[in-house]
C-alpha cells in the first residue's frame, strides 16, 4: 500500500511538471498569437503587451478557467463508464497522466516543425485516446460507453464554428467602424462618439463572464439575471468614464485617418486585456485539465470530479502561462509583430474583439477551442470586409491539416504512454 502511494505521488509530481510545461508552451506560443494584432498594429509596446498578457491571462485562468477544465477532466471520458469498464483509480491517474504527457510531446514536436497545432485539439485527442484504449481492452464496454461521443462531436463542431464566429463578429465590427467612422466627414469625431458604446460593450461582456457562475471561488454566486444586471451597470459606468475621457482627448496628428488609428490604440488596450482574459480562461484547461482530474482522484481515492477545480491548480496553470510569456513568448511576439506590421489599430480592434468574444463565450460554455484558430478566422473576417492588405490563405489549409493530424497522433501517443506506464508499474 505504501509503495503504491509513493508511486502515485511521483505521478502527481510528474503531472504537475508536465502541466507546467504545457502552460509554459501555451504562454510562449499561443499567447503571442492572441496578442499579435495588439502588438503588430503598434497599439502597444512589447513591454505593455507582456504586462497585460501576464495579468489578464492569469485572471482569466483563475476566474473563468474552471469551465473548460471540467470538460477536459470529466466530460470527454465518461467517469461512470470508466468505472464500469473496470478502471481503478490508479489506472485513471495513469491514463490522465499519459494524456497530459502525450499532448505535451506532440505539441513540442509540432512547435519544432512550426505546425499551427492547437494545444486544445491535442489535449482533447489525448484524453479521448485514453477512453479509447480502456474501451478496447475492456471486454464488456464499447467505445460509446466510455468515450462521450456526443460531447466529442459537440467539441469538434465548436472547432469549426469558432473561427467562423470570429470571422462574422469581426466582419460586423469592422463594417461598423468602416461605415460609421472611416467613411464619414470628420472621422475622429465619429470615433469619439462610438467609443463609449464599444468600451461599455466589452466591459459588460467581460464582467458578465466573471460575475455569472465565475466568482464561486470567491464565495459569490449570482444567477444569470442578477449577473446580467450587474454587468450592464458596470458596462454603463465604463461607457460614462470613456465619455469623459473622450472629451479631454486631443489628437496629436493632422491626417484624419491617422487620428482615428491613434485613437483606436487606446481602445486596443481594452481588447488586448479582453483577449488575454478570454485566452487564459479557455487554454489553461489544456495544461491543467488532466492534472485537476488526477489530484481529485488522489485525494478522494475514487474516480470522481464532484468538487470544483481547486484554485491552486488554476493558479498553477496561470503562473505557468505567465512564465511562458516572460521567458519565451516575448521573442515569438517580436517575430509575429514583424510579420504583421500592415495591420492597423482599427483592424486589430475588430479582429481581437471578434476572437475574444467568441473565445470567452466558448469558455463559459465549457467548449475547449483554439484561440489562435479563432483569431485567424477573425482576421480573415476583417479581410473579407476589405480591411487587410494581403492574406496568405495557405495558413488555413495548414491549420486544417494540423487539425486532422493532431487528434489521432495525440490519441495514439496517449495509448502508447499509458501502456508503458502500466507495464512499468
Amino acid at each position, binding site marked *: 500500500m505504501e509503495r503504491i502511494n509513493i508511486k502515485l505521488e511521483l505521478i502527481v509530481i510528474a503531472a504537475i511538471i508536465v502541466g507546467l510545461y504545457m502552460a509554459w508552451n501555451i504562454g510562449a*506560443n499561443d499567447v503571442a498569437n492572441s496578442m*499579435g494584432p495588439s502588438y503588430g498594429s503598434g497599439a502597444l509596446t512589447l513591454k505593455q503587451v507582456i504586462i497585460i498578457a501576464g495579468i489578464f491571462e492569469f485572471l482569466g485562468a483563475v476566474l473563468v478557467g474552471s469551465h473548460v477544465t471540467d470538460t477536459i477532466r470529466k466530460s470527454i471520458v465518461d467517469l461512470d463508464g470508466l468505472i464500469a469498464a473496470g478502471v481503478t483509480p490508479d489506472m485513471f491517474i495513469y491514463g490522465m497522466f499519459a494524456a497530459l504527457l502525450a499532448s505535451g510531446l506532440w505539441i513540442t514536436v509540432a*512547435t*519544432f516543425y512550426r*505546425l499551427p497545432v492547437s494545444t486544445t485539439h491535442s489535449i482533447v485527442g489525448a484524453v479521448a485516446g485514453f477512453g479509447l484504449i480502456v474501451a478496447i481492452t475492456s471486454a464488456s464496454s464499447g467505445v460509446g460507453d466510455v468515450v462521450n461521443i456526443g460531447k466529442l462531436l459537440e467539441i469538434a463542431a465548436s472547432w469549426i464554428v469558432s473561427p467562423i464566429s470570429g470571422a462574422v463578429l469581426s466582419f460586423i465590427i469592422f463594417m461598423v467602424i468602416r461605415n460609421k467612422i472611416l467613411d464619414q466627414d470628420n472621422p475622429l469625431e465619429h470615433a469619439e462618439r462610438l467609443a463609449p458604446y464599444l468600451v461599455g460593450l466589452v466591459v459588460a461582456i467581460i464582467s458578465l463572464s466573471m460575475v455569472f457562475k465565475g466568482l464561486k471561488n470567491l464565495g459569490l454566486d449570482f444567477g444569470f439575471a442578477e449577473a446580467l444586471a450587474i454587468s450592464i451597470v458596470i458596462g454603463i459606468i465604463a461607457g460614462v468614464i470613456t465619455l469623459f475621457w473622450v472629451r479631454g482627448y486631443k489628437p496629436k496628428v493632422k491626417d484624419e485617418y491617422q487620428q482615428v488609428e491613434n485613437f483606436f490604440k487606446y481602445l486596443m488596450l481594452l481588447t488586448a486585456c479582453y483577449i488575454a482574459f478570454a485566452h487564459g480562461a479557455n487554454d489553461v484547461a489544456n495544461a491543467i485539465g488532466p492534472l485537476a482530474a488526477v489530484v481529485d482522484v488522489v485525494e478522494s481515492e475514487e474516480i470522481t470530479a464532484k468538487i470544483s477545480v481547486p484554485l491552486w491548480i488554476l493558479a498553477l496553470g496561470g503562473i505557468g502561462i505567465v512564465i511562458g510569456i516572460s521567458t519565451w513568448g516575448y521573442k515569438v511576439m517580436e517575430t509575429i509583430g514583424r510579420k*504583421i506590421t500592415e495591420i*492597423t489599430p482599427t483592424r486589430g480592434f475588430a479582429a481581437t474583439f471578434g476572437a475574444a468574444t467568441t473565445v470567452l463565450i466558448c469558455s463559459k460554455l465549457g467548449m475547449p477551442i483554439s484561440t489562435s484558430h479563432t483569431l485567424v478566422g477573425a482576421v480573415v473576417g476583417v479581410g473579407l470586409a476589405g*480591411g487587410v*492588405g494581403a492574406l496568405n490563405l495557405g495558413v488555413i489549409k495548414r*491549420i486544417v491539416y494540423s487539425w486532422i493530424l493532431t487528434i489521432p497522433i495525440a490519441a495514439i501517443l496517449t495509448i502508447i504512454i499509458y501502456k508503458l506506464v502500466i507495464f512499468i508499474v
Partner: protein
Amino acid sequence: MAIFERIPVGDLFGKTPYMPLHKHIEKVNECADELRPLVEAFIAEDYDRVEELANKISNLEHEADKVKTDIRIHLPRRLFMQVDRGDILSFLKKQDTIADKVEDAAHLIQIRRTKVPEEIRDDLLEFVDSVKSAVDALEVAYSELNRLLETSFGRKEHDKMLKLINKVDHHEWKADELQLKMSKKLFEIEEKLDPLSIWFLIRIINEIDAVADYAEDSGDQLRTMIAK
C-alpha cells in the same frame, strides 16, 4: 530569432504590393522629369546634353524595370488581397510602359540631329509640360490609394480618387490638342523643311504623346482596380 514557435496568426499576413508600386510610379515619374530638359536641349541643338539626358533616362527606365520585376516576383497567386491581382499586374505593366515611351522618345531625339523649326518651339515645350502633368497627376492619384485602402474603399475616398484620376485624362487631352496643333503647323511650313525632318518630328511628337496616353491608360486601370 525564435525557432521554437507556432505562429499561425503571424503567417497569415502577406506583403502588400502598394509600397513597391508607389516606388515604381516614382521611378517612372523621375524618367518623365527628364523630358523637359531633354526637349530643351533638343531645341537648343545641344547634342552632348541630349546624349547625357538620354543615358540618364535609360538608367532610370532600367531601375523602374527592376522594381517592376520585384513586384511581380513577390505577388504570389495565393494571396487574398483587397485589390485584384490581375488588375494590379495590368496597372504595373501600363505604368511601366510610360517609362518605356520616355526612353523611346529619347532615342529618337538621340539618333538624328533634327532641327526644331522656330514655329513649333513654344508649342512643343507646352506640349511636353502637359505630358509631364499627366504623369504627375497619375502619381498624385496613386498616392491617394493608401487613403482609400485605409478606409477600406469608403465612398468618400473613392470619389476623391476618381476626381484625381480625371485630372490625368484632362492633361492627356490637352497634350493631344497640342499634338494636333503642332502637326498642322509642320505641314503649313512643309516647303521650308525636308521630308525626313518632318517625319522625324512627327514621330518624336507621337512618341512623347504616347507617354501621356499610357498615363491615361494607367489611370483607367487604376479605376478598374478600385471599382468595388
